[in-house]
Structures are given as C-alpha cells and as structure tokens.
C-alpha cells in the first residue's frame, strides 16, 4: 500500500467518524426540541462526511485502470431484422384475412376509449355563464367591505381606494371591486352610456386585471393610474380604465354605481363586461 493510499484511507476514516458524531449530535438536537438551522448543518455534516469519505477513498485508494470496451453499432444486422419481421408477420398472417373481426375489435377498443373520456366530464361544470357574470347581476345590491360593512361616499377621502364586494358575496373571487375617489381637478372622461355610473367623483372598476386576473392593487393618484403588481399592466382610471401600458389589452370592466335611500353606495347591475382574463367566446352571447 502506497503512502498516498494510506493517507487517503485514514482521511476517509476521519470523515466517517465525523459523520457518526454528527448523527449523534442530530439525535440530541432533535431530542432537545429541534432547531432548524442546527438540524440542517448536522444533516449536511452527516451526509457530507460520508460523501467526502467515499470520494476520497475512491479517488486515492481504489484502482483507476482505464479500460476499453468495444462498442457495436446499435442497429441489428439486416438478417436479424428480417428474421424478426418474418416472425411478426407469421403471427399476424392469420388475423389479417379476418377483416370483419379486425374492424369489430378496433371499434370495440375505440368505443371503450371514448367511454373512458366521459368520467372526465365529472371533474368540473360546463364553463359558460359563470365566466360572464358576477353576483352583482340582478337586483340592486349594496357594496360592502371585506368585513361586510356598507360604504357611504364620505368613507372615501380624495384619492381614496377601497376594495368592495356585492353584499353577501365577500368570498366571491370574481367580484372584488375597486371604489376610487378621483380628484375634483382631474377631468374624468365617461364612456358613452356610462355618464351616470359614478357617484360624485367615485368610480368603480373590477379589481381583476384583464391580462391574467391578478388583483390590480396600486393606485397612482397623481396621474389617475392603476398598476397591476403581477405584470405591470397600467390602466387609466380617468379614461374608463383603458390599458395604457403593459400586456393587458382590455379596459377594466366598470360597475354602475348609485345611492340608496340611506345614502349607501349600491351597484345598479353587473359590470360592463366579463371580468378578469380573456377567453375565446368572451363577447359571444
């Protein structure tokens, strides 16, 4: 045994020993109530000790003969392929003549495959109406905050933003709505037919980005811009929430607002269009 070999073997022994000690340490740590950082380090020492020991052993105390192995081409000889094909055809020959039987077998298996597709239908409801409407549809509803409180115009200071839902549906993922009070000095361009959809300077848009549906969270009051933190789509609140930058291509749907007799803000119907990300038949009825 060479000197180098002997050194490598004693080094490997030390590594194995360190690993064993660390294992005991891990057991104690666990028993004492555990400590994530220490557990990670001890696990690293345990596995690392074994790893270094083995590699050191392999590198310096095991044979390193370079050997040459012949390599045949992967493909078989023509004769072998020929013989295989012949055997395969011999088995098929008898069947080949029974066309009707083959057709029947094929049909049965195809039908079975098709039948197996039906249970997939159980996974979810038919998509459709749900994507195009929200709980705002139907009769007038108060808008409420996350804890169910109705909102009056005085709850919003200038530049104020509140997230609201239709009353009774604060858990509806398609309904979060932004109420924004714009500045008196900011010129608001109402869309045609939506001239009376605001209450004073308060306007409401769907909070779901028309790109892929992230909640549009950041309001830059100075410029009247809403920014989606996911992919930076930017919407102009003063101009029908038209997208002005980023990947979103459609305006945020607007909610027609009004006041009830108690002076609370209500929704007078559903959004101006389907909320959230687009889909192929979004604007078909």
């Amino acid at each position, binding site marked *: 045994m060479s000197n180098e070999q002997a050194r490598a073997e004693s080094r490997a022994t030390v590594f194995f020993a360190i690993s064993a000690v660390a294992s005991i340490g891990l057991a104690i740590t666990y028993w004492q109530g555990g400590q994530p950082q220490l557990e990670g380090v001890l696990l690293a020492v345990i596995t690392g000790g074994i*790893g270094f020991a083995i590699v050191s052993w392999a590198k310096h105390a095991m044979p390193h003969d370079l050997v*040459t192995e012949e390599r045949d081409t992967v493909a078989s000889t023509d004769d072998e392929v020929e013989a295989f094909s012949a055997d395969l055809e011999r088995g098929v020959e008898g069947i080949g003549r029974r066309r009707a039987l083959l057709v029947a077998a094929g049909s049965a298996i195809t039908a079975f495959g098709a039948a197996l597709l039906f249970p997939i239908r159980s996974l979810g409801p038919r998509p459709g109406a749900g994507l195009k409407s929200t709980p705002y549809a139907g009769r007038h509803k108060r808008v409420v905050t996350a804890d169910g409180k109705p909102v009056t115009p005085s709850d919003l200071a200038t530049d104020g933003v509140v997230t609201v839902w239709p009353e009774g549906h604060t858990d509806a993922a398609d309904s979060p709505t932004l109420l924004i009070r714009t500045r008196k000095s900011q010129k608001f361009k109402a869309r045609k037919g939506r001239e009376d959809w605001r209450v004073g300077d308060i306007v409401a848009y769907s909070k779901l980005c028309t790109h892929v549906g992230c909640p549009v969270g950041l309001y830059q009051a100075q410029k009247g811009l809403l920014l989606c933190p996911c992919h930076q789509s930017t919407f102009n609140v003063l101009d029908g929430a038209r997208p002005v930058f980023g990947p979103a291509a459609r305006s945020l749907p607007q909610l027609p607002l009004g006041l009830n007799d108690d002076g609370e803000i209500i929704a007078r119907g559903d959004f101006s269009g389907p909320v959230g990300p687009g*889909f192929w038949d979004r604007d078909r009825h």
Partner: protein
Amino acid sequence: MTDTAKGPAGGRSKPPPNHGAPMMRRTARWLDRRLGAADFARTALNKVFPDHWSFMIGELALYCFIVLVVTGTYLAFFFQASTRQVVYHGVYKPLQGVHMSAAYKSAIDISFKVRAGLVMRQIHHWAALLFLASIVVHLARVFFTGAFRRPREINWMVGVTLLILAIFNGFAGYSLLDDQLSGTGLRIGYGIALSVPVIGTWIASLFFGGEFPGADIIGRLYVIHILIIPVLIGLLVATHLAILVRHKHTQFRGPGRKENNVVGERLWPTYAAKALGLLFLTASLLCLLGGLFQINPIWVFGPFNPAQVSAASQPDWYMGWLDGALRIMPGWETRLFGFELPNPFFPGALLGGATFALLYAWPFLEARVTRDHDEHHLLDRPRQRPVRTALGVATLSFYSVCFLGAASDVVASTFHVSVNRVLITLRLGVFLVPIIAAWATYRLCRELSDRDGLPVQSGVTFGQIGHRLRRSEADDEAGAEADTG
C-alpha cells in the same frame, strides 16, 4: 494503461484474499441459483464509464430527485391537501385568529410545530430548485456536444419529457401551500388555461373544478404532485438509464477513443463509489441550504386571499421565463373568425408549446439539415459546430431575457428607472440579445477552432458540416479497423 473490459478475473486467476469474500460469495451463489444473474451482474460491474466532469450533471439531477422523494415523503405525512377553512390557533403568534385553508395551516404547522419539519420543507424546496437547474444544464451539455444524435434521439425525447414533468411538478408543489404567493401563481395559471382557444374554458373548468379558485384544485394538485408525476418521473428515469446502458456512454475525442469503443473506468468499484459519494455530497449541499438559507417563508406571505396580491411576486426560477414572457408581451389582442385570441395565449401557452415542440424535434431537424443520419458516439466540442452552438446560445439568451423580465419591477426599483423603460428595453432585448449572442458565439467558435487547428467541421453551410463529418468518421472507422487488424 489499457486493459480489456471483461474485468480482472479474465486476466488474473486468483483475486487477493479478502475476509468478506466467503460471505459475499455465499450470498451471490444463493441469489444466482434463484435468478441466474451472475453473467448479467458481472457485465454490469465491468461497465465502462468515460470520465468527464460534465457527465456528472445528469447524475446530480438524479440525486436531487432521490432527496426530493425522501424529504417529500416525510412532508406528506403531515400535509393536508384541503381548502376547508379553519382558524389558526398555533404557535406562530402573528397568524393567530387568522382564517386560512387547512392546507396552509398544515404547511405552517410543518414549519413551526413539527420537529424537523421546517428543515425538511426547506431541503425539499432547495432540492426542487437544484433538480430543475441540473436538468437544464444537463440538457445544455447534451445539446452543445451533439449527444442527441442517432442513436440517442429517443433518449433525448425522454429527457425533454422529464424536464416538462419536473417543471410542472415544481409548480404544482409550491402551489399546494395555498399562501398568497402560490395562490397568485395558480390564478395566473388559470388565466393562461382560459386563454387557449375553444378548449381553454373547458380545461380551466375541469382542472379547477369550476371557476377560480375552485375548492378541488389543491387536492387535485396534491395527487398530481405526490403520485402521478413522481411515478412518471421514476419510470422515465429508469427508461433514460436503461437506454443509456444499451447505447453505452458517449465520450469526447481523445487518445484511443473511437466511434466503436468506450474508454474509461469500470463501474466497480471506483466509479460506483464516486457516484455514491456524489449522492451524499448532493444531499449534504441541499441539507446545508435547507438549514441555513430561508426559502419560501409562507408565514410572511399569509394565506391566499383572491382580492390581494403583493408587489414583486416572483415564481420559482424555472417558471421565471414564462412569467417574464407574460410581462414582455405588448398589450395586443387579436381576433380570429370573430372570436377573441387573448393576449396571454401567445407568451403563456404558445411560447411554452413551441419551446418544447422545438426541443423534441431538434435531433430530427438537425439531422435533416446536415443530412447526417449516421450513428455518433464521439462528442463534438461546441466550437466544432459553430452554427449549432450559436443557435443554442441564442435560444438560451432569449430565455434569459425572458427570465430577467420576470424581475422587471425589481430591476426598475433597484436601478431607479421606470418599469415602463425597463419593459421597453426588454421588448427590444428579447430579439436583439439572441441575435448579437448568436453572432458573437459563431465568431468565437470559429476563432477557437482555428486556433486549435482542429479538423474543423465549421463549414459555412450545414451541408458541408455533415459531409465533412461523414468523411472524418470514415477515417475513424478505417483507423479502428487498422487497430484491430
């Protein structure tokens, strides 16, 4: 020194005395009388592995997978894949009294209540990140050295499938925890699914069990994450290795190395020991990361609330290219036959689909263009194939720009420039950077190979490359015959 491959027993008559031997021999005999596997097992022991550091990257992926299975099994004993609403009354004070799903609560409990739970969770997450990284680097190694050429096209496709499965399982894994960040990720996934023409709404509804968020999605992702995909990955890894054994390993050119041989160390004992050592060292690195470097602190993000989102929401790194592409895409929306073609369809569904379709097809595309349909077992050096290398670098740089795009808001706030300016730069960069990178790579390859005085296969056209290669291979074969004769 060179020896024949059939092992020491073929040359020497008596092995050196060994105290463990009688026991080992008795066991071997017992097994062989029942399995008759002695000859097969001996061939396996003497299998030759060429040595090169880059061949270890694929191994690294395998070892990460093993760590993932071990830590994942532990986590599965504690995790509850349910969206049932509960109120938290556990040990983590800031969340006390907060409404959350049972899934999120069990993940919080794993982090704070289950002993050794947090370290396992963090090792699992780090292992997933390294798993994906080693797969991608391994893929790049195979690509740039031409190891995908005949006869290895099938194994290339198995590898690409493994990459897709690994990406999807990573996404499914971090989506399970139902925290604010992962919920946002799922929502984006839902939006991308919706964007697919005609079938998109069905896919989304069936997968989520209705409209987002859907009560079924966490349970379904759990089955996918811990059963379906891991089993598929296991089967495909076995296939990947079986095909590798059948083909024998590729090797770089070098003294005595030819298309019709393989030069290296035997599996037993040195190579096997090194591989086992690497497994332990991989585990060691992951344990160290999992112990000392916090990852995915879900208690900071809070439970998922569909009306909220935090700024700087970034996915795990292997999803970054997709998120970046979503950001870089300008706000165009097209119509086709009177139907809408939503914007996220292009970067979200089409880009990914095209990426993997191109990866699957690459070996066949290249063989078609170079008209080189021969068997190859000697690897190219990237510089020998300037066109392929340039295309590969261009592709990688395209996805790197996309990846950078996923951090556009972070870049903007770090360097105090507007997000808009960053995005416009990226929109240009996503086309310009690959072109510049391809040109620079091509020039670099040409110069390096000229300097080496290699028998360069760097002709201007692909056709010439193939032609020259066939000739050089014919030379190799002639040389081989001369050797044996």
